[in-house]
């Protein structure tokens, strides 16, 4: 096989990965608080001989896109959104494992504690669970994240901000694994109740990426085909003994 075939194949593999990432973004277009995955390709230089330089494309990394997402009104008092800081997160805990999430779709747990939809405890400042008064008539959310059951203060949700370039590992359910070293406490945000943040997936962008990847893949197949024909013709030209 010639180098051109390998080059084509390496790009086709990269495109397969691209389409997987796009598929996951589109599948999560309605997952509250989901941050889309973006992919970045790099090239690997190789000098097979002294004259030409060949650059193999390969997938360098996927990264989390923190752009803004739409906010929806739900009128559910325990749905919280973090406004004014795209890198701020709630801290939730289950079985000793802590996660960061922007999905503020919270509800009242069986014992009056504030929980996520999948039963994780929402942590307050000083990492204490937030206990609401189950018999309260109404819950109020202050802009700093303090929750009141009627007039009584029930606690304040802990909000942390990601430090730049700290490693970020996805943990499912619109969340990331918490690495205490990679986050810092912050007051640079506003919390609102009764609203929820949707995914930041832009359907048009994802569809464009999808079409682009699919067409590009096809084009490369043509290149592969042409190279194959060229070799086949070259073989035909060899006079038979």
């Amino acid at each position, binding site marked *: 096989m010639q180098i051109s075939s390998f080059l084509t194949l390496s790009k086709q593999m990269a495109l*397969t990965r691209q389409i*997987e990432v796009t598929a996951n973004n*589109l599948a999560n277009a309605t997952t509250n608080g989901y941050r889309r995955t973006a992919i970045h390709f790099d090239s690997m230089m190789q000098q097979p001989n002294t004259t030409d330089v060949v650059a193999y494309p390969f997938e360098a*990394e996927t990264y989390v896109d923190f752009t803004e997402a739409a906010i929806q009104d739900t009128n559910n008092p325990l749905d919280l959104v973090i406004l004014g800081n795209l890198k701020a997160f709630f801290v939730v805990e289950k079985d000793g494992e802590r996660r960061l999430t922007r999905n503020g779709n919270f509800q009242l747990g*069986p014992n009056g504690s504030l929980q996520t939809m999948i039963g994780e405890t929402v942590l307050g400042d000083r990492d204490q669970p937030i206990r609401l008064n*189950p018999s309260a008539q109404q819950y109020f959310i202050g802009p700093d994240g303090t929750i009141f059951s009627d007039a009584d203060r029930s606690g304040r949700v802990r909000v942390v901000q990601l430090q730049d370039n700290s*490693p*970020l590992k996805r943990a499912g359910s619109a969340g990331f694994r918490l690495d205490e070293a990679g986050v810092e406490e912050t007051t640079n945000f506003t919390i609102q109740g009764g609203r929820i943040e949707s995914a930041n997936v832009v359907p048009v962008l994802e569809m464009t990426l999808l079409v682009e990847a699919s067409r590009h893949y096809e084009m490369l197949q043509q290149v592969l085909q042409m190279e194959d024909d060229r070799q086949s013709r070259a073989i035909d030209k060899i006079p038979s003994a």
Partner: protein
Amino acid sequence: MFRSLNIAATGMAAQQLNTEVIANNIANLNTTGFKRQRADFHDLLYQDRGVTVGSRTSDAGSVVSSGTQTGVGVKIGGTYRINSQGALTGTENNLDIAINGRGFLVVNLPNGVTGYTRAGSLQISPTGEIVTAQGFTVRPGLTLPANTKQISITDQGLIQATIDGQLVPVDVGRFEMAIFPNEAGLANIGNSFLAATPASGNPTTGNPGDVGFGTVKQGFLEASNVDMVSEITALISAQRAYEMNSKVIKASDDMLHTTTQSMR
């Protein structure tokens, strides 16, 4: 094989459920005391491929800050009820009651289970007992005296019956109501009834108007809290999301087709 095919399939399955939830909300637009539901989605696990996030890239201690993590799709986290108050609609029927605020009427279901409901369209059984539209006893079990010609129900749930030929009405009793720490955790059991679960917590019983309990309004019914406009918008976006996931399947299929076509 292309993982994108499976990923898109999880997306389509999720949107299908989303549409079912919306369809049920719209179908129950005129169901008394119905609370609309919402589907909640979560992204699935992520796989590290190639470089792992957080791994060292040099002896100087630099680390990979994002790595290559690809997700495997979406799952349904659950559906939950939005327990906002429905509009109170006047019916001028003496036996219609609407609960304004928190709480449920407590009903003895024939199978021994205790049902909780906000549908207050009550009836009188042949024996004079106050029952639900299905004929189930409303707790604590209230029987009207014979020859009752007028019933009045106070905001605190006190039922008074005026008997034919008497001027002063007699007290029949007060409705029992229950509240839960987590109303969203109650299980739907059909016929507008909900049942207690470990997630809902234990009911606290009391009477209408007690601290933490709503009051009742005679001659009113609580309409469903379904908002037609928001349901239709949700339906449109669910349908489009479904369509987009199918496009991913199409694109992946085209790519596979391209590859297989070149084989000979």
